[in-house]
């Protein structure tokens, strides 16, 4: 299981970075999303995967007697998912607006000389 996850994380990071390096805006967005998912899987993996051992102390005991599944990585991932949900939805709206303004998907065309602003 661990090995499978490691391979999956590697693939997610690699594709994410590759897509970010492309010039297309849609690929940039997909790359960011894949990288975010890769990071979530990484946190999940590094919290040590233990199957069928919920972190609940049985009656009459004060501490855990044996190995239990660590709940913290899941809390972290949940937070990270919510945050990346917000960021991704913002990114989608922003890129859609930019596409509507400049009519191209090419990131190299984002350099109209700046005249004035306030």
């Amino acid at each position: 299981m661990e090995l499978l996850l490691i391979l999956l994380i590697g693939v997610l990071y690699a594709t994410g970075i590759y897509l970010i390096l492309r010039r297309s805006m849609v690929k940039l967005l997909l790359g960011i999303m894949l990288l975010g998912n890769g990071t979530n899987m990484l946190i999940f993996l590094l919290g040590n995967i233990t199957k069928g051992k919920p972190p609940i102390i049985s009656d009459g005991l004060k501490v855990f007697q044996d190995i239990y599944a660590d709940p913290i990585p899941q809390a972290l991932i949940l937070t990270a998912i919510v945050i990346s949900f917000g960021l991704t939805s913002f990114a989608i709206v922003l890129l859609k607006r930019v596409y509507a303004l400049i009519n191209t998907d090419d990131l190299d065309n984002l350099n109209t000389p700046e005249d004035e602003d306030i």
Partner: protein
Amino acid sequence: MIDNQIIATVLVHLFIAILQLGFWRKTVPQRVLSIGGSFISLIFAIKLFTKVFNGDILIMHAANWEAPFGIVFVADLLSSTLVLLTAIAALAVSIFSATGIGRQRILYGYFPIFHFLVMGLNGAFLTGDIFNLYVFFEVIIISSFVLMTLGGRKAQLEGAVKYMAMNILASTFFLTGIGLLYGISGSLNMADLALIVPKIENRAIVDITATFFLIGFGIKSAIFPLYFWLPSSYHTPPSAVAAIFGGLLTKVGIYALFRVFTLIFIPNEFIRDLLLVLSILTILTGAFGALIKTNVRRLFSYLIVCHIGFMIGGLGMYSKLAILGAVFYLIHDIMVKTNLFLIAGLIRQMRGSMDMKKLGGLYAEYPKISLLIAIVLFSLAGIPPLSGFWPKIYLLQGAFENAHYLYAGALILGSFITLFVIAKFWSEVFWKKSPDPDTIEDKFKDLIGIRKIALILPICILAASSLYIGLNAEIIIQVADRISSEMLNTTPYIQAVLGK
């Protein structure tokens, strides 16, 4: 010592933002609330600073979960100093925004987002939990995305794409670092990590984790190979927004670097050399970039990059004197950089342009304001006895003490180019005759008195703070001295947080 008041500044900005949402599309109450709220948070920040300065490190356990299990907020001298500086800068910017931000932007929620941003900044400075730091970073970047795009001009959106992509990437690197760190140490509390991480035997994986943090924070604080997003986006939003970005957002990255690399990962030879090389390259690229720019705000953006290098170098040398200099520079830099962008906004109001080729004749028309601006420019360039001068002395001393002559050379060259650029800026914008006097649209002249004050007063506040830093340097040195001792000897911090 446990003191729940330390998150007062965070809460004040949170409540102000929520209250302002209740006054949606009503510009006057929003302006009043913003200035009033920033003032209240300044009072809390001063109280916090004096408490920490005269006493001990203060902590607060969120929901009464004790460290290292719960989230803990820690106000040591570094945090409380930065909270105080943030409060001063936020007050200045919120006064400036009352006039400097167009009505349309305020109608679409400029002020609530601004206060969420400042809340995030305060939270990032005060938290003692590495994952909580990540969450506050996200609060900061999502608010900054909105501030950067609000208004929706073409150039703004183009700048925002670069800004957004790089900042999300930085957060991903940071989060990867946190994941690895949790995997190797099983803790998220920074003080607890400071105890666990040095004992880990597999140093290679510790170095890899440290590198992830370096890249993540490096993008945020715009150090050498990772800074390109900054000059291509900071000139696009309104000047008040650029002021808070230029003054504080990159400094959060610096703060995080200082915190993580003095508390959790004590830099080894490799990381120190890496930081020094990066700092030299950052200084040089920033300085050379500033030389060729004619747009005032692009020029200032490159100066930000250049001066980030000074501080990173101070961390890279990792000696008492060097860190003292870097901390002092941080204190000086927040005040001056915020002010520079406000000045750019004022010039834009007076002339309707930011291009140095089209500007000119400001000294003849506004001599008093020009002299006020001159003080700020001199502070930036580091003319003794103003505020930019003292930290550079310490940085140079630190460099010679540890025989880092290349850094010393880069520091001197960087300062010289800053001086040159500032002289050029002064002669082009203030002394030169206006090239085309008929086409000038001077909005500033037609403003009513109170609006003029709203534009000038923040610059006065920040200039006065710069003057205070420069002329009362012995007090600031005392503060910076204590901060650098706390950074190099982290036992009091760890004891305060873990209570043992």
